[in-house]
């Protein structure tokens, strides 16, 4: 099969060559006929001569061009190799830098204040903690415009956000954020303490823990011993300073068997 193909291919090519030769023959015969006319022959010869001349010129020119191209390609390919190794190390260092930068961005949350750039401005995230326990986070979405505006936020309504922003937002944004931080951390801490009191000291509490949403006013009844016949005490804790987690006023009333405590609603 293949042999036949090659034969036919060869046949075709031979046919091609043969046809070509035939053409040349006819041309030669034609030219021979023309040679019988000396004038036209001469003219043709000179025309052909000039044509060859031109062709030679063009060929030389193209030869030179190709040489140049090849040289430049060679040069650029040899240049690529060392650059390419540079590229790898460059890419490695880029990646390392990128990872480091990303890590640092993550690390900002440990300062208590971190943020993410938004199309409008920045969304600041304030983290809270108490005695090493990481607690809730709150966010404030700021619009970077003059005047600076709070787009929206997750700050509880009983934190005096308007007051703080009226004082500091326009003039000293760092102070605004850290003051807000203070209030939120204090609130978080008070809330955490109240929650823990309720859960961890349930046995000591003689009734429910009463508190307000700011957790700066707590009142409860407790016993000195979980079991036994000790008399209950009524405690009232007031945290006047909203930026602290320690109460400013503590009232403890002790009653015998009579009803006395004004803040407790049970017998």
């Amino acid at each position, binding site marked *: 099969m293949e042999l036949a193909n090659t034969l036919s291919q060869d046949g075709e090519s031979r046919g091609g060559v043969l046809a070509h030769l035939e053409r040349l023959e006819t041309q030669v015969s034609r030219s021979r006929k023309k040679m019988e006319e000396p004038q036209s022959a001469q003219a043709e010869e000179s025309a052909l001569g000039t044509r060859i001349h031109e062709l030679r010129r063009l060929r030389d020119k193209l030869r030179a061009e190709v040489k140049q191209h090849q040289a430049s390609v060679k040069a650029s390919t040899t240049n690529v190799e060392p650059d390419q190794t540079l590229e790898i190390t460059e890419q490695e260092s880029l990646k390392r830098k990128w990872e480091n930068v990303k890590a*640092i961005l993550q690390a900002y949350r440990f300062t208590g*204040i971190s943020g993410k750039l938004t199309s409008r401005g920045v969304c600041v995230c304030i983290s809270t*903690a108490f005695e090493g326990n990481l607690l809730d986070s709150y966010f404030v979405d700021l619009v970077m415009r003059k005047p600076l505006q709070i787009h929206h936020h997750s700050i509880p309504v009983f934190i005096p956000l308007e007051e703080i922003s009226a004082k500091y937002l326009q003039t000293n944004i760092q102070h605004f954020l850290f003051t807000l931080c203070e209030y939120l951390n204090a609130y978080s801490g008070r809330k955490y303490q109240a929650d823990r009191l309720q859960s961890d000291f349930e046995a000591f509490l003689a009734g429910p823990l009463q508190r307000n949403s700011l957790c700066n006013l707590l009142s409860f009844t407790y016993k000195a011993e979980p079991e036994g016949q000790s008399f209950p005490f009524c405690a009232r804790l007031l945290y006047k300073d909203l930026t602290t987690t320690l109460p400013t006023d503590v009232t403890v009333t002790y009653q015998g068997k009579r009803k006395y405590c004004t803040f407790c609603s049970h017998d």
Partner: protein
Amino acid sequence: MDSQLVEARALEAEITALRRACVEPPAPGEDTSRVRKSFRETYQADSEGWELSKDLRSHLGHLESEIQFLSTLTGISIRHYSKKTEDLTSTEMTEKSIKKVLQRHRLSGNCHMITFQLEFQLLEIQNEESLSSVITDLSIIMEPTEYSELSEFVSRAEERRDLFMFFRSLHFFVEWCEYRKRTFKRFKEKYPEAVHLSEGASSSCMGIRNPSRPGFELVIVWRIQIDEEGKVLPKLDLLTKVPLQALELDKNGVIETAPLSFRTLLGVLGIEATLESLIKSLHTERVMVFRQSRPARTGNRRLPSPPP
């Protein structure tokens, strides 16, 4: 003629071939980066990485500007951060679907002129209902150590493992320091002969003298203290230096009560106005008499925050 014809044909063929050779590789003078790019495309080692490379650069730039912004927003620059995680989940815990992880963090940076280095451990316990994160250890190294008020504060923060309080108080402390520096500098510039700063602008004392009345000096000591809760409060005191003769002439005991009166004045006028009035008082020809009205308020309640 035949030979010429043949030559002509040969030349034509060569020319066509040469033309083809010219077109394929890029022409000289064009960017070698294109070649590099095609090489890059054919490079197979980390094809995904190569695509990232261009995006990486622009993304890196964006992240770096975000850090710059955060550092301006908070006043705290974090230079280095690393973290190691250790899984402490035991097989019993996994059965109860509880996960326990200990993270060791290392953080360093600066807040204006104060550099810090922190190392802390964070214990994360995840059970079905909630995730609890607790800082179980905190160690802080701070420079410069010339702010003696800070060393006590640092040990307190370490004890309470209160990382956020550390940064908050650090910020307010630095803010007050900067305000004190600005105020002292301003007065020094306004009254160059009267005002004397012993340790330069970052000193905690400002001396007021009158060159024409040697022997008299008022020294204002401005300390910045951090209390147990991490609250930063300025504490200003007045010290008087007066020649013995003047003391003998002082029947009303003005010099003696000056420190208390100073505190009263602070509460009424604020820091800057008080200092200015003191400077002016030493320069007047008339003798200033401190009126001793009601006793001064004890302690420095929350004074207003430093103006921007």
